[in-house]
């Protein structure tokens, strides 16, 4: 049984349909992501990237279809799925009236990190994202880039097996973007499974093992990064989505 589960993909989504009112956002989407794989999910605005990530994160229920993460099925085993997930979304998912340290300590408690290790882990992560000198400052005094760095620290605080990143580079300056590149490189090297949505085709190609392009609620293109050159990606993206891109 264990071997059977271990042999299966880390993330399995089958025939996913999500309809908001009368608008279908996902239309029978199938997606498998292997253990340790880094998938860059590309697609124009409104193609269903964020909706797909919200379903995988157990924040939204699909209208129909099945989702399994790490062998656990949604929505029935959502608690176990959530324990394996780290999520960075458009919103920082932080409390602006608490300090950086208080925010991370709150999430460390919520994720049940061992009491003796919490503070060390929090300070390690604050150092890792370059915010250790601002640990005692309330988050509302932070710049957008600093908030995003803290949001990334929150997402990886509990060392999740799966990272879901929804446009994590939004609002980051050059230094912070480079820091996130390093952090994601470490996460991938440690064998974590990552799905990252992005509009930055070159960055997606540089970081990921595989690229999938989502358009009108289905995966219209799915390829290993080894099989496509970064320079060819903008043209390919424009062909399959009908979008005009210069990146």
């Amino acid at each position: 049984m264990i071997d059977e589960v271990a042999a299966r993909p880390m993330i399995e989504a089958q025939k996913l349909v999500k309809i908001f009112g009368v608008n279908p956002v996902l239309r029978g989407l199938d997606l498998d992501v292997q253990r340790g794989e880094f998938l860059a999910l590309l697609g124009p605005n409104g193609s269903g990237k964020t909706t797909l990530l919200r379903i995988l994160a157990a924040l939204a229920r699909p209208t129909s279809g099945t989702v399994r993460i790490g062998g656990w099925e949604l929505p029935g085993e959502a608690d176990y799925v959530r324990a394996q997930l780290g999520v960075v979304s458009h919103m920082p998912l932080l409390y602006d009236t608490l300090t950086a340290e208080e925010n991370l300590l709150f999430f460390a408690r919520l994720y049940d990190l061992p009491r003796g290790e919490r503070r060390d882990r929090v300070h390690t992560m604050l150092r890792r994202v370059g915010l250790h000198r601002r640990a005692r400052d309330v988050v509302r005094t932070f710049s957008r880039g600093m908030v995003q760095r803290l949001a990334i620290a929150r997402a990886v605080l509990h060392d999740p097996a799966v990272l879901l990143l929804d446009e994590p580079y939004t609002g980051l300056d050059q230094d912070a973007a480079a820091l996130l590149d390093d952090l994601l490189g470490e996460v991938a090297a440690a064998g974590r499974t990552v799905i990252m949505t992005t509009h930055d085709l070159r960055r997606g190609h540089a970081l990921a093992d595989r690229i999938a392009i989502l358009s009108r609620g289905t995966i219209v293109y799915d390829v290993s990064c080894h099989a496509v050159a970064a320079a060819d990606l903008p043209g390919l993206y424009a062909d399959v989505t009908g979008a005009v891109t210069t990146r």
Partner: protein
Amino acid sequence: MSAPPGNAHSTPNKPSAGRVRRPVTAYWRAVGVIAWKDLRAEIRSRELVTSMILFTLMTVMVFSLALELDADARQNTVAGVLWVTVVFAGMLGLSRSLAAEKDRGSLDALLLAPIDRSALFFGKMIGNLVFVLVVAGVLMFALTVMFNITLIRPLIVLFVLLGSIGFTTVGTLFSSMSVHARARETLLPILLLPVVLPILISAVRGSTAILNDLPSDDWLPWLQLLVVADVIFLAAGYALFDFVVEE
């Protein structure tokens, strides 16, 4: 660059050996962590309780100036003034409590945590209860001064406690229902007021009987009704919150 697709890594903390049951945070610890976070954030910002207390004091002043009552009439109306003010001041706090989480995206952070959703409900409810009890305490003191009637009696305090539990339980549930709506500030009172009517009536009648020094036969049934309403609302919150917050 990270590992190629399908390359499963093996470290003890990853689900490469099948389904890994990561710890799901203990129920009551999660409740305590969420309630404490709300209290800490409120102590820092003083946004909710300050506005609730200001509203309360204004209302007491308006009632005491508008109703020129003799001693008997004051005895019979003060409980009504107390509870109507608690309910309206409480709604101010309830409508902001989850709406603020939703607006800054931190509601998703709570929903992503590996905790039973009902633990999130009870955590928020306990935070709201503390705010309502603080306001009720200030209100009882203000009414004692302005109406010249001693409200701070053990039985009145018991009614306030039980009434506040029922009110904040159903209020937290309904505010989480209305938090996704565009007109949530209007929707909450429309949904909430009819449902809290049994609590409001029991609390007013019971408190009035106690203030008039009537025998226990006159207030005990109202106390029992309050207890029953609290149990029903707590059970409903426990059972329904998961469905209410999910998209």
